[in-house]
């Protein structure tokens, strides 16, 4: 069953495209990783689910959550979706949690708003904290964010996200602001708990390996478009899009120590001035004439989907 579906989503801010064409679905209980360079539109895609777009933004196409078109929700419906069905974990826990209020306030706030009594909310918050591996729970509930480490605070944020057993969790680079040693732990906890709650996960990362470890499928974004979608366990074998392949080549660990790391030539493309044809054409080492003029469609190849003219197609259908 499809939990979340983007269908030709396009977002413009004051006429400048930020997202050009995003078509992607997340099934119930499934984890999908959204990877790409900074500015490729990953965050904007995720934010559009909760209609958290910046002022002046205009979205076309549809974002469907369950049976509802998110763009048609009224205020109350949108609030219900935000508070019960979809939870978001942001990049920097320090910025996400109100610095002057207690951890307990943060965890119980949404529950209280839904009519749960103070003592019940308190008990549930304590349980949630214990579940994500936070110790001294009673004391933590009385503490404020500045008294907790970043890793601990992100666990608190994850606990808050799980509070209402949401159907979908949106995680926007949840480990980027943490130090390397706590990153793995935090991701493991997020993934474990969301499996228990049966929540689907849309996981943004610019770390391909991390995304592949956590998710069932990987979607690669470039300049506001999804250029390839493939199963996480086939990432290395089945990556067919030149951009995905370039990304895979530019990871540390692909070369012997001391050698220069491969990079993707050129600089990241913004969705605004992307070429008329394939968005990656300007940086693609294999780009041909067709690539610059005609937009490639996202078509099945091997175990996944890729948008590239250069791939052999069984039925060559170019729009």
């Amino acid at each position, binding site marked *: 069953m499809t939990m979340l579906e983007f269908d030709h989503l396009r977002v413009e801010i004051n006429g400048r495209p930020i997202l050009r064409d995003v078509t992607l679905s997340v099934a119930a209980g499934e984890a999908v990783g959204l990877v790409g360079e900074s500015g490729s539109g990953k965050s904007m895609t995720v934010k559009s689910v909760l209609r*958290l777009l910046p002022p002046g933004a205009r979205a076309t196409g549809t974002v469907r959550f369950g049976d509802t078109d998110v763009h048609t929700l009224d205020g109350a419906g949108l609030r*219900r*979706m*935000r508070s019960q069905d979809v939870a978001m974990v942001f990049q920097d826990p320090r910025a996400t*949690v109100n*610095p*002057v209020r207690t951890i307990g306030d943060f965890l119980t706030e949404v529950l209280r708003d839904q009519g749960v009594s103070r003592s019940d909310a308190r008990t549930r918050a304590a349980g949630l904290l214990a579940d994500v591996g936070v110790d001294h729970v009673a004391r933590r509930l009385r503490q404020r964010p500045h008294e907790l480490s970043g890793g601990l605070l992100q666990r608190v944020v994850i606990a808050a996200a799980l509070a209402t057993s949401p159907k979908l969790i949106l995680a926007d680079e949840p480990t980027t602001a943490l130090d390397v040693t706590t990153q793995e732990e935090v991701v493991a906890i997020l993934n474990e708990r969301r499996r228990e709650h049966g929540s689907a996960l849309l996981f943004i990362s610019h770390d391909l390996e991390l995304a592949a470890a956590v998710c069932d499928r990987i979607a690669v974004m470039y300049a506001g478009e999804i250029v390839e979608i493939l199963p996480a366990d086939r990432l290395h074998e089945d990556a067919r899009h030149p951009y995905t392949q370039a990304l895979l080549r530019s990871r540390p660990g692909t070369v012997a120590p001391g050698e220069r790391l491969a990079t993707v030539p050129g600089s990241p493309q913004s969705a605004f001035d992307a070429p008329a044809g394939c968005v990656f054409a300007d940086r693609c080492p294999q780009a041909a004439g067709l690539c610059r003029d005609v937009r490639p469609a996202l078509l099945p190849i091997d175990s996944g989907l890729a948008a590239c003219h250069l791939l052999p197609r069984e039925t060559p259908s170019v729009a």
Partner: protein
Amino acid sequence: MIWFVARKLGGMLATVAVASVVIFGALYLAPGDPASILAGGHEVTPATMAAIRAQYHLDDPFWVQYGHWLGGLLTGDPGTSMVLKEPVTTLISSRIGTTALLVAYASVVILVIGVVSGVLAGAAGKVVDGALTVVTTILMAAPAFVAAILLIWIFATKLSWFPVFGSGEGFGDRIHHLTLPALALSGGYLAYVSRITRTEVRAELAADHVAAARARGLPRLAVLRRHVLRNAAPPILAVSGVTVAGLFAGTAVAEQAFGVSGLGSLLVQSAARQDLVVVQVLSLLLVAAFLVVNMLVDVLNAVLDPRLLTERTA
């Protein structure tokens, strides 16, 4: 927390001590011979003059004079007015109620209208914001005495809603009498508090934790109250504190303009007739009032944002 308050209290006492030296020193150095003022401007015999100088310790060295003065202050006897020949304590106690009421009245006006208009300007959209910016700009530009003249002209002369002179008897009547002075006094400060509130509310509205609170589906008003106003409160409070503390000095203009008999007008009149004893005590009292209000705000802020307790320990 106890340490925090103790530290603040210590700092406050030290400031008052320094202020007392500065105030006493400044008036000690001021031109004019106190003895001739004490003599009432009459020609007196050198013997009488010498007696006056001895009575007021005017020939002692500076620190001895300061010691006498400080000793008098601490024992609750700051001396007798050099011109009115009344004990300073009597002069002050008969006026302090009026001034305190005026300051309290103006503070309420400043805080309520200033904060509410600031929140509206920050959160209610461009039209409201624009209109309020125009109003606050005018208020900021108008000095208290200009505001006083305008208020008298409109509300006292034209509309006759409020009396133009005096302090009134009984609480209701005093409030009635003090309305125009309080408005004249609050104008500029009100605009200032409103502007600061607007800026702080704007900054908090743009904060990530507010976006996160919205993403969690909390109602608009709850977000505004618990995440925007709650977080904007400390800086607003700090500015309001300084503003209210500054009102004690501001009363001089408002009381004088409306013929209200309070500490402010007493200070102005005493300074005009070189009544040093009164000026010294009143100046110190104003400094102390300023510091007390500031300290209360600091402590209140630390309660609102406990991070302040740890930040300044170094």
